[in-house]
């Protein structure tokens, strides 16, 4: 058994990090790669933060853990609405619960979908919790007052504002770039300060934190970060200053990684992982506009055409109110899930054109998210040719070119491991994000539950450390089989034939 440190870099990709390591801007990361093992890390089918991190923390695919988006869509009789996906929607135990039951202590900082916090054996501060709700979000609650008393910790700077987040993914005004980057530099430092405090004052076996500024910067600033792209437009002093700030973010992030690794000590195994990768996008696919053109969706007369570059509507839940539900049979509510919901079997429509233009793949929910909870996912999941998000807004065209290249999620993230018993200086074949949990369990000396969907990546360990410990044990079920909702049972009974019929009606199958 070895103490284990998990550093999550939300959205990190070797496309960016390799260049930064070569330029000497991330020496710690480079050292870790040289002293350990690296691999590409294949994300969940939809490479989206809430489901991917939940997969990494549970070892289960979305069809099993039940998280498919930041929100949970409720299919009501009249029209659907959605609410925030929370920890109580996760249908399997997290690694914190699994090892906690065996007496091991965890520190969990800034992971999404962990609110409300579960009473783990250790300390937890979930991600995506606004400051005003942070106290209620901490486990134990007394942690808030304790952290408030530490001069180095500014609790107001830990959270990210939802509206800011939403805007940054869409269009970040030029005058806001500098403020946005500096904000995330400060935030990462604050999470690092909290991690430092807990690591030095509490016993722990698994310490884990997500630094999510990587994702936030790459969304808004991809064209400044990508070397090749920047060379094509980066002549202005403003562009150069934004790029310098981005590089400074990564420089400082590397310092924070070094701080955590040093604090953990040489006997600790260190794992770095991202929930997904990143890449460029120069186009937007307006899926609801396409559905409208095909006759599956009707806009309300006063539904506005979105401003250029927008993939989401402003204001909570607004998308659901732009549709004329009496004439809508298929729709998309959120950009990140890339999911189309069908209200009925649907009238005939032809998806062929859009599929040829921008859609790399269309997957039924049974294909994309096999498992007992696949009925909670959208009926269809689109994989766009740039792996980007669809836009749910109204547009005058189905596909529009972005004015500026943006950063969008990509399924290939990063994996780095180093420390006792880890091979040195090797690059191995891509792993699945589902393989990280078994690796963490193994690192902690714990058996890998049989129900995990990934495998133990023995190739990252020295042979003497790669032996599977004892016998695998079944993971504790949170929901017994007989607790599957009636709707799920009904949907399962509906059978493949009906699904295929729906697809055929929509033109996905001949």
């Amino acid at each position, binding site marked *: 058994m070895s103490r284990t440190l998990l550093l999550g870099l939300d959205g990190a990709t070797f496309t960016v990090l390799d260049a930064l390591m070569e330029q000497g801007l991330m020496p710690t990361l480079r050292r870790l790669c040289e002293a350990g093992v690296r691999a590409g890390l294949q994300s969940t089918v939809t490479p989206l933060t809430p489901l991917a991190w939940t997969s990494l923390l549970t070892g289960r695919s979305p069809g099993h853990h039940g998280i498919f988006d930041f929100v949970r869509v*409720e*299919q*009501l009789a009249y029209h659907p*609405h959605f*609410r*925030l996906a*929370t920890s*109580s*929607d996760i249908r399997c135990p997290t690694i914190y619960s699994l090892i906690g039951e065996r007496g091991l202590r965890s520190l969990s900082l800034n992971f999404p979908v962990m*609110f*409300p916090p579960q009473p783990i054996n250790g300390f937890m501060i979930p991600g995506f*919790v*606004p400051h*005003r*709700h942070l*106290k*209620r979000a901490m486990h134990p609650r007394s942690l808030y007052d304790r952290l408030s008393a530490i001069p180095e910790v500014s609790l107001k700077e830990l959270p990210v*504002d*939802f*509206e800011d987040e939403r805007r940054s993914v869409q269009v970040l005004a030029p005058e806001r770039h500098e403020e946005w980057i500096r904000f995330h530099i400060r935030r990462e430092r604050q999470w690092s300060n909290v991690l430092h405090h807990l690591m030095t004052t509490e016993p722990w076996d698994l310490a884990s934190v997500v630094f999510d500024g990587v994702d936030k910067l790459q969304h808004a600033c991809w064209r400044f970060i990508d070397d090749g792209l920047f060379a094509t437009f980066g002549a202005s002093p403003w562009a150069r200053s934004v790029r310098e700030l981005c590089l400074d973010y990564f420089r400082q992030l590397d310092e924070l990684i070094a701080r955590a690794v040093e604090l953990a000590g040489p006997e600790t195994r260190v794992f770095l992982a991202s929930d997904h990768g990143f890449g460029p996008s120069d186009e937007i696919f307006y899926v609801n506009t396409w559905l409208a053109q095909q006759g599956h969706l009707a806009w309300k007369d006063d539904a506005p055409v979105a401003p250029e570059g927008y993939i989401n509507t402003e*204001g*909570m*839940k*607004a998308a*659901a*109110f*732009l549709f004329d539900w009496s004439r809508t049979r298929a729709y998309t509510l959120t950009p990140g899930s890339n999911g189309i919901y069908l209200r009925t079997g649907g009238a005939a429509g032809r998806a062929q054109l859009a599929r040829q233009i921008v859609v790399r793949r269309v997957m039924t929910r049974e294909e994309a998210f096999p498992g007992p909870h696949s009925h909670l996912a959208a009926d269809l999941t689109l994989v766009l040719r740039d792996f980007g998000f669809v836009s749910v807004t109204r547009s005058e065209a189905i596909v529009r070119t972005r004015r500026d290249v943006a950063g969008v999620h990509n399924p290939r993230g990063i994996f780095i491991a180093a420390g006792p018993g880890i091979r040195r200086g090797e690059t191995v074949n891509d792993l699945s994000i589902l393989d990280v949990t078994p690796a963490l369990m193994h690192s902690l000396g714990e058996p890998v539950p049989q129900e995990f969907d990934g495998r133990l990546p023995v190739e990252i360990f020295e042979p003497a450390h790669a032996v599977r410990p004892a016998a695998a044990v079944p993971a504790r079920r949170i929901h017994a089989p007989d607790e599957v909702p009636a709707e799920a049972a009904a949907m399962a009974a509906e059978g493949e034939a009906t699904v295929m019929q729906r697809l055929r009606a929509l033109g996905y199958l001949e």
Partner: protein
Amino acid sequence: MDEQAASTDNNDSGRILDGLLEILEDMIKDWDTGFSGRIGPATSLMNNLTFESIDIVMLIVAIEERFGRKGLPFEQLLMLDGHYVDDLKVSQIVQFLERELRSGTTA
């Protein structure tokens, strides 16, 4: 409505109000709202307690946890023509919960 039913309703209403007040008091106790009164049925979440849209989202999570029910159609209470309502009183939430918890319909 017979006496027993009325009594049950009153108890439900009281229980729901108590539960909601507990959530709200816990939620805002460290907020700088400037509200010095006691939270009650007539208290406005937006005007008195400075709620913003994200606070409403967090309140829904807390209510669902507290009352052990998911998928309540809060949009019927909170949304008007695609936007959050400008004002919401504690009594409106209590009435909504009374109705929805009694009907037992969730998504």
